[in-house]
């Protein structure tokens, strides 16, 4: 089940090798952030060095996949032909309080006209596109019970 209609650009790992582990993990229903082996600081999006201590020993590590909605938006106007028949959809910015407040962008599944409450707890829904060329996985979010 795909939240958005098909046809948007497909995410692929950066050709310079920066973020391949993240995408490979998502394909296995695992959520990862980048963490510094030296100072333990989590960061997102991925970078080549830790922005706190400048160590190059940054790696990808599985996290407890629970976050809270930091902000959101309901989109109505399509800016890509794939979305012309989509209707409204919800984008959320999810923050991870236990991981130095790193944030990720995704869609909030369910009724696109639902009321969204900033601060709500959310958990990931791994949306696999095995027929994609190349195959890929999106990390979506749902309100946690």
């Amino acid at each position, binding site marked *: 089940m795909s939240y958005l209609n098909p046809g948007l650009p497909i995410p692929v790992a950066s050709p310079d090798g920066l973020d391949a582990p993240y*995408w490979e993990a998502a394909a296995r229903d695992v959520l990862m952030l980048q963490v510094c082996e030296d100072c333990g600081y989590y960061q997102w999006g991925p970078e080549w060095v830790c922005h706190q201590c400048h160590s190059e020993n940054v790696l990808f590590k599985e996290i407890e996949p629970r976050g809270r909605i930091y902000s959101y938006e309901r*989109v109505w106007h399509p800016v890509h032909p794939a979305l012309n028949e989509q209707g409204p959809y919800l984008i959320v910015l999810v923050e991870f309080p236990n991981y130095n407040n*790193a944030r990720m962008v995704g869609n909030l599944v369910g009724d696109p006209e639902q009321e969204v409450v900033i601060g709500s707890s959310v958990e990931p829904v791994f949306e696999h596109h095995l027929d994609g060329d190349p195959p890929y996985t999106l990390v979506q979010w749902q309100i946690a019970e």
Partner: protein
Amino acid sequence: MSRTIRGKVAVVGLGETQYYKRGQSPDAEFKLALKAIIAACKDAGISPKKVDGFASFSNDRSDPSRLAAALGCDDLRFANMQWGGGGGGGSGAIANAAAAIATGMAECVIVFRALAQGQFGRFGQGPRSNTTTGAGAYTVPYGLMSPAQSFAMKVNRFMHDYGVKQEALRAISLASYHHAQNNPRAVMHGRPLDEAKYDESRWIVEPFHLFDCCLENDGAAAMLLVPAERAKDFPHKPTYILSALSGSHYRAGASAHNTPDYATSTFKTTVPRLYAMANLGPRDVQVAQVYENFTGGVLMSIVEHGFCEPDGCNEFFTKENLIAPNGKLPTNTSGGNLAECYMHGLGLNIEAVRQLRGESTNQVNDVDVSLVASGPMVTPVSSSIFGSEATL
């Protein structure tokens, strides 16, 4: 304070092409640039051959060497591009040009922006590639790809934090359209906006209605800068740069919306330096041009430039407070990016100088200090303050 550009540079020429709806310019983008530059030189009463520098922003496609060749400039001494920031570079390009003049690198510099969105890509559309990688891979596949979509979440969070109502955004749009009705250059001249029309307009992305969003236009704008000591050699009332600079806060450019201070127009760190250089404060500013990519950016910019407390937005942002001549802070008096023309904000700097000359179509009385905030919510952003001879 010896290391400053305050009072060292004057704006002596303003030039604009006719402004067109996107795709309707009969002229190529490069020709639009030439026309605006020639107009600015004519306004200043000098030959374009005397121009010795060009400064622009947002990767303007009109290359300075080609411009200098096309115009027959005698001696190119300064060719400058402000990195990043889209419209956030508007006052930054002015700052760069002023720095070149203040330090003796150049004497006669054009700041310009030429844009034909009909001939090249539209800012308001998503990418058409089959794949996306890097930072784009974390947003584009989720349908987050246009400027409106990139900024609405910042504005939603700000409105949530401070209880700001939709009516505050509406007031900004109403003021711009009000001013455009007196400005025959404005693309929205003759197309007034009222509260009902705003309320009934479609959502683009909440909290932005259609009328909260800038236009998409073709055209060009240019300003001519010279050393302050030459200001009185030119035909118009002298106007001076009191402050101009750019910047952004800690990790403002972190990808996937990870800047720690998120719900901001990006001006919190630059504004103290802006006023310190000008040796002025917000109470001295008589009229403001505040870049409207979207009204929410105007709201946060006005707060961060010290004109209003964040929890006072619902009281401050009324149409009456924002219109010339008698509003508390007359704002976007040409109609700005919402209703005059989206020339990536350089038109706002031109309007700021026009207010000092006394030539605005929505003139504020006896203006000595005129402020511009360029490109909120991007990084880096920039601001400028222009002043009359009395402020030197």
